[in-house]
């Protein structure tokens, strides 16, 4: 499988099953992985800042990147109600003493959560906050999301493709 790097402030939408989308070095940034299991469309946004204040249409900002991701996915055949999300990042990178330093990481997490809620996209799993940087990978073929911190192995955070049982329950309902 081919790794495709999603650099800082970037948004990538793809249905290429040969790809793994990777956001390397999420410090105060937040990686937002979106997946529609039926169409196989996947998106990864490497969000840098919380709020564009409506001034710039720019995927560095949570309030722009997340709606843009969902819009592009649906325009390419995804169904909004099927999209599920996992997020990671938003660390307070520098361990300051008792200082009034602005916590961008925390603001980024809140902004991403708000933007996803506004679109009614469920957050299946999250690994946020703390002081560790993270690398998030989204396997397009399976919808699996992995998170890695320095000096440790990648861990499965979530599978954004529902398992069979979950599908059965959904059908019954």
């Amino acid at each position: 499988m081919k790794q495709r790097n999603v650099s800082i402030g970037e948004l990538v939408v793809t249905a290429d099953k040969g790809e793994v989308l990777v956001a390397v070095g999420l410090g105060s940034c937040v990686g937002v992985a979106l997946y529609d299991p039926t169409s196989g469309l996947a998106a990864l946004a490497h969000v840098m800042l919380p709020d564009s204040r409506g001034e710039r249409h720019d995927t560095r900002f949570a309030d722009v990147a997340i709606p843009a991701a969902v819009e592009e996915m649906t325009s390419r055949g995804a169904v909004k109600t099927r999209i599920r999300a996992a997020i990671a990042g938003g660390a307070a990178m520098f361990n300051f003493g008792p200082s009034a330093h602005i916590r961008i990481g925390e603001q980024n997490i809140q902004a991403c959560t708000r933007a996803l809620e506004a679109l009614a996209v469920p957050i299946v799993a999250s690994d946020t906050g703390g002081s560790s940087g993270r690398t998030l990978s989204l396997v397009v073929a399976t919808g699996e999301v992995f998170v890695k911190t320095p000096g440790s192995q990648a861990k499965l955070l979530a599978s954004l493709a529902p398992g069979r049982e979950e599908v059965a329950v959904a059908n019954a309902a």
Partner: protein
Amino acid sequence: MDALKALELTARVTQSLRQIGAVGARGAANALSQLTGQEISISMPIAVMLPLVDLPDLFSPRELQELCVAVYVPFEGDAAGSLALLLRGDQAQTLLSLMGLPVEGDFDEMHLSALREVGNIVASAYLNALADLANMTILPSPPGLAHETIAAIIGSVAAQAMLHDEYGLVVQVRMSSPDHRLTPDMIMLPRPAALAAILSKLEASLDEAA
């Protein structure tokens, strides 16, 4: 601030910024030299203005994935901005062992506290040298410390700066011990709004000196 978008650094301004970086770095290198008992030299500084979102491009993709110990010092006063000392790979261990604090396994509280203090001393030396040169008051904040990939550190530094500015000035310099086991990078991000003030004060003091 939009006017600054169009600001291209002229050769003259670039030269002045590199001079500023060299003076600051010499101050920092002296401090580091006293802490480690090693002679520390400095490279010719690089000065660029770039969109802050492109800050990670100062490093190669491979470097971005390297672990590094970073001390981050925001500063205010006549010029505001931030300064970061980056110790890549196992340089933090090298530095600590030169200071008589060898590391076996992970850093403990004492190591982290020592690294923070080193960062504080070196960054203060840099900023003091700069303040003296330009006859300005610069007030460093308490340092923040991180042990992370360069990508995570630089991304966070850029995000912090982007709360104020779209574009950033970067003055980067590498220090080096004679055996090249210790090659810390210092990256200064003065806020562009302070550029005019720094340059006018700098030119005034250079004229005096001449």
